[in-house]
């Protein structure tokens, strides 16, 4: 017993020395840093795959890669970006920020925290290793639909196990976040005083616990169909491939909200600070988030309008999907109202956040178009849907992750980033992301299917423009890498204050700590809670 206590004391003094610190660490900031750096690395790996895709699509005809590898690229790009970059980045932010925002010393379950990070690394490495296997990496699209996915070569069981690992890692992360928020808050931090980022993560964590096991189940059924003679989805044995689609999208639709709800949370954190106003409609934001999460469970078949659903099903899923626009609209109006008549300044985090509000709304509108079942027959599986979800993910989730980086890097490191390069990064990204994805709407409406390496000549112009946008966007992200490295190494040399941004400490607790904050955040719970965010 005393040995255990002694070890704990040792931990309380600070990080272990050397490289081992990063492997055995149970500190929420260290683990947050690991998650964020890993996500950044995967952002570039997934980005490199996207560059292969855009290079091949630069001109009609087959230029650089063979079709099977092209399909592996679209599949792996999506899986790496979703499970390796966006989700881990938000878990990293949760690790860093939630304890500081709710006045806690650390996460609730520090050892599990360490384990969930390393399982993530194992899962992603396993997934990446399929690229080298006989028959290539999975090439069926990230949705892994049977029967196509069952034709994957040697990689199939490895891809499935990697999904299992990623699932376990996410579930452990989610459990930890819920336990932290429920049990570790400072006594004065009531639920309805919690920063929006904490609220959105709480709801996201419940989503994760509900859906990741379902996905794990679906891929396990694929595994047994392939190797153990079950027939869940095998028509010849009495199964039905459409059943897979139902199970997958029961997971898949809430999954897209797993990526967007924390995005909403960060936007609701940043915008009030730079508008110098409280967040407009705090409680309606909380309820809208909960409503979106609830609705996300009952709309999944809008991904399946063309499978031959009965008319009652088409109608139900059409109207249910349209309902989501209401709470989503509430959020957009609230952000706009927060900025209304505020004394706004336009530092890089705010620029990215404003771009998020505008561009995410466009993604929402195309979503609304596709929710109309009869017209979705035209849009389905074309580049239109590719444009839709990239607008909801890149200039939304990814932009907000960038915004979060600029917003909190000074707090994390104690150094100021270079604002001019930040602004350059913003403008290059914001312009090129539209050159990249806007033409894809036209391509889709004109009938270009998704996931093909070659296309009819009529699609040539917009594809070339889209690819050029893609190359500029990809190259611009190197500026972000530069800024992160530069800021960690001292940045502009300017001394940052505790609150970094004017009056930020009136908005949230993390700004009341030093920059960089102490190794253990709040060893004694804070007594007064800033309420400007409410």
């Amino acid at each position: 017993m005393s040995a255990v206590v002694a070890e704990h004391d040792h931990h309380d003094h600070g990080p272990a020395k050397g490289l081992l610190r990063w492997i055995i660490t149970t500190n929420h900031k260290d683990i947050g840093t690991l998650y964020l750096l890993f996500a950044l690395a995967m952002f570039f790996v997934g980005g490199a795959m996207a560059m292969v895709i855009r290079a091949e699509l630069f001109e009609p005809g087959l230029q650089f890669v063979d079709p099977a590898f092209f399909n592996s690229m679209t599949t792996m790009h999506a899986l790496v970006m979703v499970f390796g970059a966006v989700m881990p980045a938000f878990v990293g932010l949760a690790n860093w920020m939630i304890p500081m925002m709710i006045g806690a010393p650390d996460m609730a379950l520090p050892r599990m925290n360490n384990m969930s990070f390393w399982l993530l690394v194992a899962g992603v490495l396993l997934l990446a290793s399929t690229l080298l296997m006989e028959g290539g990496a999975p090439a069926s699209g990230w949705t892994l639909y049977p029967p196509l996915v069952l034709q994957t070569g040697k990689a199939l069981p490895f891809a499935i196990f990697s999904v299992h690992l990623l699932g376990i890692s996410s579930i452990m992360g989610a459990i930890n976040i819920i336990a932290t928020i429920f049990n570790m808050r400072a006594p004065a931090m009531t639920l309805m005083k919690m920063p929006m980022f904490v609220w959105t993560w709480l709801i996201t964590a419940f989503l994760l616990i509900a859906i990741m096991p379902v996905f794990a189940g679906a891929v396990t059924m694929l595994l047994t169909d392939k190797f153990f003679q079950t027939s869940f989805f095998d028509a010849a044995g009495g199964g039905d491939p459409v059943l897979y689609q139902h199970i997958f999208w029961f997971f898949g639709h809430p999954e897209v909200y797993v990526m967007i709800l924390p995005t909403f949370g960060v936007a609701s954190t940043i915008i009030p600070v730079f508008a110098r106003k409280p967040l407009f409609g705090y409680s309606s934001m909380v309820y809208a988030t909960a409503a979106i999460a609830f609705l996300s469970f009952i709309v999944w078949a809008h991904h399946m309008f063309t499978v031959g659903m009965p008319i009652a099903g088409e109608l139900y899923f059409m109207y249910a999907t349209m309902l989501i626009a209401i709470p989503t609209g509430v959020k957009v109006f609230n952000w706009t109202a927060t900025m209304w008549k505020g004394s706004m300044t336009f530092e890089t985090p705010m620029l990215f956040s404003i771009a998020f509000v505008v561009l995410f709304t466009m993604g929402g509108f195309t979503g609304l178009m596709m929710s109309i079942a009869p017209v979705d027959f035209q849009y389905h599986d074309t580049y239109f849907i590719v444009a839709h979800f990239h607008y909801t993910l890149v200039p939304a989730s990814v932009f907000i992750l960038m915004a979060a980086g600029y917003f909190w890097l000074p707090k994390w490191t104690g150094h100021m980033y270079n604002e001019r390069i930040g602004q350059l990064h913003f403008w290059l990204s914001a312009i090129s992301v539209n050159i990249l994805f806007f033409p894809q709407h036209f391509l889709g409406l004109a009938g270009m299917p998704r996931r093909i390496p070659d296309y009819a000549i009529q699609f040539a112009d917009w594809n070339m423009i889209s690819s050029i946008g893609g190359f500029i966007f990809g190259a611009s992200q190197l500026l972000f890498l530069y800024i992160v490295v530069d800021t960690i190494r001292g940045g502009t040399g300017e001394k940052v204050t505790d609150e970094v941004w004017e009056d930020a400490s009136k908005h949230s607790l993390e700004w009341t700590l030093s920059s960089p904050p102490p190794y253990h955040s709040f060893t004694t719970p804070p007594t007064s809670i800033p309420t400007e965010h409410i």
Partner: protein
Amino acid sequence: MSKDVANKNIKLARTLLLVAVAMFGFGYALVPLYDVLCEWKWIERDRPDDIKKVPEVAYQIDRNREVTVEFMTTLNESTPMKFRAEKKQLKVHPGEYHTVNFYAENKTDNAMVARAIPSFSPAVISRYFEKIECFCFSEQTFKAKEAKIMPMRFVINPALPEQYKTITLSYTFFDNTEKSVKK
């Protein structure tokens, strides 16, 4: 962290883990649920792969209209067979019985178990396309190199709405040898 809080954390973590395990089970529960829901009257899913045998009854033949029935034959993946219909298409009157022969051959030197799965386009047709006899009702066994002529007898229910003038019926043969052996 006080002992009290630590205990609370572990308790909550256990509960949540249980929820996760339950959701894994829920994923599997969706399998039977799916079949049940598809049978519900108000859902009435037209499963294009419906395989039901119906008794032969005499219908009033509707000589005023003609429906074209097209036949497609496919082999799943690399099933080592030959498979074709004796006719590519057939013009029929609703209510009139027809028999079409399908030809299948096992190209291998081993016995084989194969299963043909039908699919209709448009899917709603499956409600009106009645099969009295079909090789798709059960698994077919083939000796090495064996060739078979397999009849399919059907009628189109005269209740078929006017707008359907062409029906495509496709069969896909799946090699089920491995699965049948292990069973």
